């Protein structure tokens, strides 16, 4: 990682002319994008399917490598896969549209997985997992495998997993995409509480206008380009 000289003034996340191509450049998912996200923000990445917002989210999380451009997190520029993994282990939480839980582990174990290597005490890992299960109202489902849980429960569990190591940034990709309205409402309430009560910076990918309306800042993405940042609009200020 490289550290800029005045990193105190750096935003939480900064992208500079970031692009991501696929299929040897034939498909360009993200085009030369410049973006900064400050600590404590609740940002919605809004756009149609295929607009590049999921790829952008993956680039922000360091699970996708940019084809060109640079990304800084808390003023540091991680290059390697391992450096990004270390950040995801302690500073960045991820929630996917598909819950992406490990099928061989039960709910509690799925929460403990990210803590292995971060929290040395097995007892404290277990306590933290139970604490989060209580928070998402699933402590009674601690011993159930993902396939025994409903879609809403799996997504709440995935959100709980993203919080186990007390991250400063949570990135959520269409977290309500596969849920009915009641479950979607519960998930959004949970996400908002993470931002408002815990002060965690939240970036949510969505194409749902209602969910986007919950965010204080909306970034409109089309064809891999940032076409509108609501923070640039006069009424935002």
């Amino acid at each position, binding site marked *: 990682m490289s550290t800029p000289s005045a990193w105190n003034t750096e935003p939480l996340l900064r992208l500079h002319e970031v692009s991501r191509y696929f299929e040897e450049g034939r498909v360009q998912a993200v085009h030369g994008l410049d973006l900064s996200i400050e600590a404590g923000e609740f940002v919605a990445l809004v756009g149609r399917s295929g607009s590049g917002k999921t790829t952008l989210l*993956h680039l922000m*999380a360091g*699970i*996708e*490598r940019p084809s060109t451009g640079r990304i800084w997190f808390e003023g540091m520029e991680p290059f390697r*896969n*391992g450096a990004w*993994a*270390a*950040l*995801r*282990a*302690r500073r*960045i939480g*991820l929630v*996917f549209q598909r819950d*992406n*839980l*490990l*099928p*061989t*582990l039960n709910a*509690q*174990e799925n929460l*403990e*997985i*990210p803590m*292995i*290597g*971060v929290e040395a005490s*097995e007892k404290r*890992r277990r306590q933290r997992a139970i604490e989060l299960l209580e928070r998402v109202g699933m402590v009674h489902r601690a011993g159930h495998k993902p396939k025994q849980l409903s879609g809403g429960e799996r997504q709440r569990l995935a959100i709980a*997993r*993203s919080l186990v*190591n007390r991250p400063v940034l949570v990135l959520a990709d269409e977290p309500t995409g596969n849920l009915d309205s009641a479950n979607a409402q519960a998930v959004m309430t949970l996400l908002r509480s993470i931002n408002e009560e815990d002060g965690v910076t939240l970036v949510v990918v969505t194409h749902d206008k209602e969910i986007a309306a919950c965010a204080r800042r909306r970034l409109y993405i089309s064809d891999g380009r940032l076409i509108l940042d609501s923070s640039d609009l006069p009424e935002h200020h």
Partner: protein
Amino acid sequence: MRFVTLPLRNLSHRPLRSLLTLLGVAVAVAACITFTSLSRGFEESWVLALEERGTDIYVTYKGVVDILLSSIEEELGEELKQAPGVRDVTGELAWMGSLDEGQPILVIGWPIGSYLWTTLSLQSGRLPAEGENDRVIIGGSLSEAMALKAGDEFNLRGHHFKVSGIARSGGVVRNYALVLPLPTLQKIIHREGVVTTYNIHLEQKSDPAAIATLIEQLKVRFPDLQFMQTSSVGRENQTMQFFNGIAWSMSTLAFIIAFVVMLNTLFMSVTERTREIGILAAVGWGPGRIFALILLEGGILATGGALAGLLLGSELFRLLVHLGGISAFIDADVEPHLMILVAGAALLLGLAGSFFPALRAVRMWPAEALRQE
């Protein structure tokens, strides 16, 4: 949960495949234990039998693979005795026969008066005296198998014999051997005037360099004969080299097959679980931890396979020794250091077999892995 929980769950999630891989390693380990124990067992029993009789240099006919087919003229013994530093030389005729009940035995003929007779430790009876050509000494285990004691009589190949004494030895070969005067054995197997080997007993045993020099001199003087130090009989003898060669070839082949099975299993496992590996990376597991996870899976399979293989190999070896009728020539116990060596090799195989799949797993960026179905 602990780190080790995840590989254990992954393996138990696909029990049949894990079991078959474990079985592949177990078979390789068992094959290695069985074949190596057979060849080493023969070699060690033979060397022990030679050491017990105080032989320093063992002489056979050059180029003979089956030592029992070696034929050296009996008169050569007197010439060998003339070599410097030689205390005594004794010709020996060995023959592999079987009792009427089918029990294979080693029959050995020594000249009456040879120093070799004095190396026998008698638990009962006495050594045959001059002219007592129908008297034999039998090993302790053989006497129990034949239910014979000193003074009893029995028949072998139509000849009548009387047990002169019972000898007890630390080695298996001698405990199942039957020793009789050389002329008698030459007569009953129709090999008059020849011996299979010579045993050379030296004045000074402690100087290996002097023994090596003497052997070089003997080789020049007797180019048709092969001279071996007792301790290196296993390495130099062609029969033993043949057995060892087969044992190592079979063991290596078994290990290569096990390696391929292990590689295949873990590659399949990594390919099928690409998405899961992507999830682990997405939640913050670094390449090192993911690498260790795959390596641990291979290690668990190899350890399980090694333990099962050690058990299987030991029992198989014991069974082969008893059913194959070779208990007279080989100790049925597997050497502990061989078990440790083979188990270590199996563990290395497991780690080597999981190395490339692990490398493949960590080379992908998480998003790439998550796109896989």
